[in-house]
């Protein structure tokens, strides 16, 4: 079991052999030979207002969802929904970022951009999952954490850092599903899990293409080029190992058929949780550490190539 999950990080040509492919998951970018959508198309699809958002997915995938409100400190943030539900008869905790399907709803939900209290509500629910040994499912869909002055006053950065910290050592299985936009740290605050899945047209990026274009090209109009350069689309994420597998969307995209999309998500979640609940918690935690520990590509001279200059005898004597 250890080896199989540990080997899942890089989707090389051999793919992620351990993930049940029959569950409709794409684990190999070879599936996209010649028909990859452009990065900008992916951005547009991921932001489509008709795409299934967290509550659309929750109502179709889970049974008997009961929402929990508030961070017990400040207020209830509508950009994050959290609660307890059943998945295939098993109680789980589910936390997701909620965008709106209309302008009014988007204003109410702050366009899916959580405040610090939203992340603190999420943390409260993570701890609940740990305390009562319930698996945790998180649904990521945000342009990013809210960048307003109130969010700064209430410690947006601290809230995100704490959320990442709690997830990184939460003693219960965690499955992350990126539904639409995975916007930077605000997304990662819900994104640390044992398995990270994404819908086929979801994106995940370190900064929005517009933000990147404004900084690097000094013009937000270059967003398309920035999106291409940042490799933020599904197949790219599979290649870098940021996501373990993609969940197939109906032809034309998830917004065309919420039921079919939810069915695919459900199949994937049930299969993954089935597998993860059997792994001892100590192994889960060390594998989760290793999963995130191994991101990064650095170049180092091999041992011995750079010899330390010998200390002259007088330095050794002087203890310098």
């Amino acid at each position, binding site marked *: 079991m250890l080896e199989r999950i540990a080997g899942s990080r890089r989707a090389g040509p051999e793919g992620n052999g351990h993930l049940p492919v029959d569950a409709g998951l794409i684990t190999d970018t070879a599936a996209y030979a010649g028909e990859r959508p452009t990065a900008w198309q992916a951005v547009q699809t991921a932001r489509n207002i008709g795409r299934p958002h967290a509550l659309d997915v929750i109502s179709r995938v889970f049974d008997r969802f009961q929402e929990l409100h508030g961070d017990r400190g400040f207020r209830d943030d509508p950009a994050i929904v959290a609660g307890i539900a059943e998945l295939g008869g098993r109680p789980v905790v589910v936390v997701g970022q909620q965008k709106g399907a209309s302008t009014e709803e988007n204003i109410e939900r702050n366009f899916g951009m959580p405040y610090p209290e939203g992340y603190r509500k999420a943390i409260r629910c993570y701890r609940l999952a740990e305390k009562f040994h319930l698996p945790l499912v998180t649904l990521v869909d945000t342009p990013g*954490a*809210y*960048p*307003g*002055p109130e*969010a*700064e*006053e*209430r*410690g*947006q*950065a*601290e809230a*995100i*850092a*704490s959320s*990442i*910290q709690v997830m*990184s*050592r939460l003693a219960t299985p965690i499955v992350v599903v990126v539904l639409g936009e995975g916007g*930077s*740290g605000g997304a*990662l605050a819900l*994104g*640390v899990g044992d398995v990270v899945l994404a819908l086929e047209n979801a994106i*995940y*990026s*370190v*900064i929005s293409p517009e*933000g*990147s274009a404004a*900084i*690097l*090209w000094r013009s937000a109009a270059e967003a398309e080029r*920035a999106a291409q*350069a*940042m*490799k*933020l689309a599904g197949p790219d*994420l599979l290649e*870098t190992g*940021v996501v373990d597998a993609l969940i197939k969307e109906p032809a034309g995209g998830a917004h065309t058929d919420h039921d079919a999309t939810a069915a695919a998500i459900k199949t994937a979640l049930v299969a993954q949780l089935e597998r993860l609940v059997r792994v001892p918690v100590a192994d889960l935690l060390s594998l*989760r*550490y290793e999963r*995130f*520990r191994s*991101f*990064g*590509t*650095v*170049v*180092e*001279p091999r041992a011995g190539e*750079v010899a330390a200059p010998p200390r002259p005898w007088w330095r050794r004597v002087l203890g*310098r």
Partner: protein
Amino acid sequence: MRLRNPFGRKPKEFPSHLWTQCPNCGEMLFNKQLARNQSVCTNCGHHFKLGAKERLELLADARSFTETDADMVSSDPLGFVDSKTYPDRIAAAQAKTGHKDAVLTGTATISDIPVVLAVMDFEFMGGSMGSVVGEKLTRAAERALADRAPLVIVAASGGARMQEGTIALMQLAKTVAAVTRLDEAGVPFVSVLTDPTTGGVLASFASLGDIVLAEPGALIGFSGARVTSETIGEKLPKGFQRAEFLLDHGFVDQVVPRAQLKERIAFFLGAFRVAGQDLRWSL
């Protein structure tokens, strides 16, 4: 073209390599004197940014710093090109700063207390965190855990390194997981926030110190001030996202002037005995 009044007073000229103007009070400061005063304005106390080398000299005991992973360099995972290629940008930053990447890590002593010390350098691509910074900090935390020595990280960063895309974002999770292991093991971690500490670095390890200290006037925040003011469509109040602002709102323990930083860190490290190192007192 502006016409000059030939009879007007000539603007005062200062040879720029000898003098620096304080951006806060406008005082002209003699560079040597500024350096002697730890890059703090002698007139108004404005704290200038400090490079990694100068920071080490300030914090570590003389000749106590031994650098680790000094030769680690970044590769180009995405083949990133904006107006320049990413490898070109790295080469330019290396030439400018003399460092291989935006952080120096190693072991040192602070007032004779052995520590693992990491200092970031804002001059290197805005101190941005990519694979190398993430890996070096993670190794520093792992070394602190293995040696049961306190970890001190001096942050100075604009955030995650865009040129490495989501790989850079994942460094947030990686560094957080590493310092979390210290937390579980009872090994102290002191985080020092200097000008500026923003974005992904503040939203990860830098906020998670057992003790979080900040330098006076340092810019510390999650979003860039420009993004925030565009979001609300108005200018931000003076002092927004400054160290004192975070102190007021409860996100840093103390704002410590540079001259007292070393002794303050040493005080906290002295107070926090590392679990497993010396438990006689509790027995």
